[in-house]
């Protein structure tokens, strides 16, 4: 693709920004444009998350954008993260726009919380009403108390362990190792919300059970903040990070939070990943660093298996052998990820992949040339 990420920017990440989501978006986009050496007047394309509260009209007025030639949005929440870059890359590659801004701005802790059920339920303390058919939180799930993503992922985790004959204490050690490894990365990253707050496996195991088998440290950090990313044509930018391939993926019953899929432990079918690497012109052995939309620790295990970095049911061995550490085969979520840096609905994972390929990560992988980023319903291969 003739597309490159030429700028990244972020606000500080906190539990209470004290600012509007518009102010967060403007701040992050301004930082990304400055990073790209562009002005707001250069921007002629934007991609938003459908979940974002900022619409294009108010945002372009606030930013001083002269006009948009291309704008789109991506549904399905954080699973769509890489889809925003896919849209932007396709737009610049096809000539629909020259400089496209992707962004996500949310008061995810002090405002609407994705880990709470209030967003699905109307009414007071006595009786609340659920509506619609979404999983979870709709009329076929909410009455049973199945309301938030972590509970659905708990159902996946329980099944995953059973399907591969993994004892629950081994599962806990595997998931805990993901949590501890990423918390370790966050200790080098001053932007991380857990900076200065390390975690041991003992701490992890002592964490309270939220929805068995997932504990509190298996879950990502609800965060206030924003991230923006600027995509331009690769042949007209210098030093950008190339988008080697981008894909969106949607399969029947494997939508964002599946409960009805024949196998809930595979996020995408195998033929999809082989095709994806081929389009990027790489093999999986070329991947130096991995970014995963880690709503829970389990997402990391699934991504390692989905992309063939280890066999089905073997991801716990991979992480317990240090495979995702800086010294390992595939350093993963090296900013701390959603688990330990911040939950900016995934766009901070893309930002970290860019930093790795620029040689500017706080946990730099020596000589990193190719990054894979996966957010369930979309994936990217980035290269320098």
């Amino acid at each position, binding site marked *: 693709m003739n597309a490159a990420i030429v700028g990244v920017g972020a606000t500080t990440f906190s539990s209470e920004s004290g600012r509007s989501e518009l102010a967060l978006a403007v701040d992050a986009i301004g930082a990304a444009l400055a990073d790209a050496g562009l002005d707001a007047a250069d921007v002629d394309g934007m991609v938003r998350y459908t979940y974002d509260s900022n619409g294009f009209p108010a945002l372009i007025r606030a930013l001083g954008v002269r006009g948009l030639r291309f704008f789109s949005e991506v549904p399905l929440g954080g699973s769509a993260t890489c889809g925003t870059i896919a849209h932007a890359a396709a737009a610049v590659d096809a000539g629909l726009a020259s400089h496209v801004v992707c962004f996500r701005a949310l008061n995810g802790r002090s405002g609407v919380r994705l*880990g*709470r*059920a*209030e967003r699905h*339920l109307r009414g007071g*303390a*006595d*009786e*609340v*009403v*659920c*509506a619609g*058919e979404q999983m979870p939180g709709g*009329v*076929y*799930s*909410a*009455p*049973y*108390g*199945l*309301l*938030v993503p972590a*509970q659905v992922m*708990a*159902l*996946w985790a*329980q*099944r995953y362990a*059973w399907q591969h004959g993994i004892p629950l204490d081994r599962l806990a050690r595997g998931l805990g190792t993901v949590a501890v490894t990423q918390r370790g990365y966050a200790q080098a990253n001053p932007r991380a919300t857990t900076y200065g707050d390390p975690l041991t496996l003992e701490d992890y195991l002592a964490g*309270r*059970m*939220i*929805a*068995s*088998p*997932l504990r509190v440290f298996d879950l990502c950090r609800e965060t206030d903040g924003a991230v923006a990313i600027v995509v331009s044509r690769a042949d007209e930018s210098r030093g950008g990070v190339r988008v080697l391939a981008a894909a969106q993926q949607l399969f*029947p*019953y494997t939508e964002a939070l599946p*409960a*009805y899929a024949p196998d*809930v432990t595979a996020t995408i079918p195998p033929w999809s990943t082989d095709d994806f690497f081929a389009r990027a012109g790489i093999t999986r052995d070329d991947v130096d660093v991995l970014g995963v939309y880690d709503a829970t620790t389990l997402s990391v295990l699934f991504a390692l298996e989905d992309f063939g970095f280890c066999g089905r049911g073997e991801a716990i061995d991979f992480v317990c052998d240090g495979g995702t550490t800086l010294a390992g085969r595939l350093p993963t979520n090296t900013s701390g990820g959603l688990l330990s840096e911040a939950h900016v609905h995934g766009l901070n994972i893309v930002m970290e992949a860019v930093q790795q390929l620029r040689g500017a990560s706080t946990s730099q992988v020596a000589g990193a040339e190719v990054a894979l980023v996966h957010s369930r319903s979309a994936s990217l291969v980035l290269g320098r």
Partner: protein
Amino acid sequence: MTRLGIRPETAGLSQAFWDGARRHELLLQRCSACGRHWHPPSEFCPHCRSSTWAWVAAAGGGTIYSFTVVHHAVHPVLADRLPYTVVLVDLDEGARVVARSAGAQPEIGRRVTLGFADYDEISLPEFAAADGG
């Protein structure tokens, strides 16, 4: 009866589903063209795209696909329910449903039998071990 605290807002297919549960029937759709069953409800058969189908009551047998025991209330209305168990059950008809768990902690792969728990607002499908254990 006791209050559940959460009421589904129903219309069309979802109204038929919850009206069925009130009569202690777990309604599935059965395709008139290919004979297969499905859930959640849809106008179209997900197997053959037929839009000709009929409601049928599940016979009641199934297998636990997965479960979770929830220990944290994500809304105040759930605080009195803790801890509670949610199960995914593969019905013998070939459709999967979310349900309540009755009795002992579920085990994946275990045979279960359908029952219903009656609340003021609705009746919830629930499953217990088929051998009573």
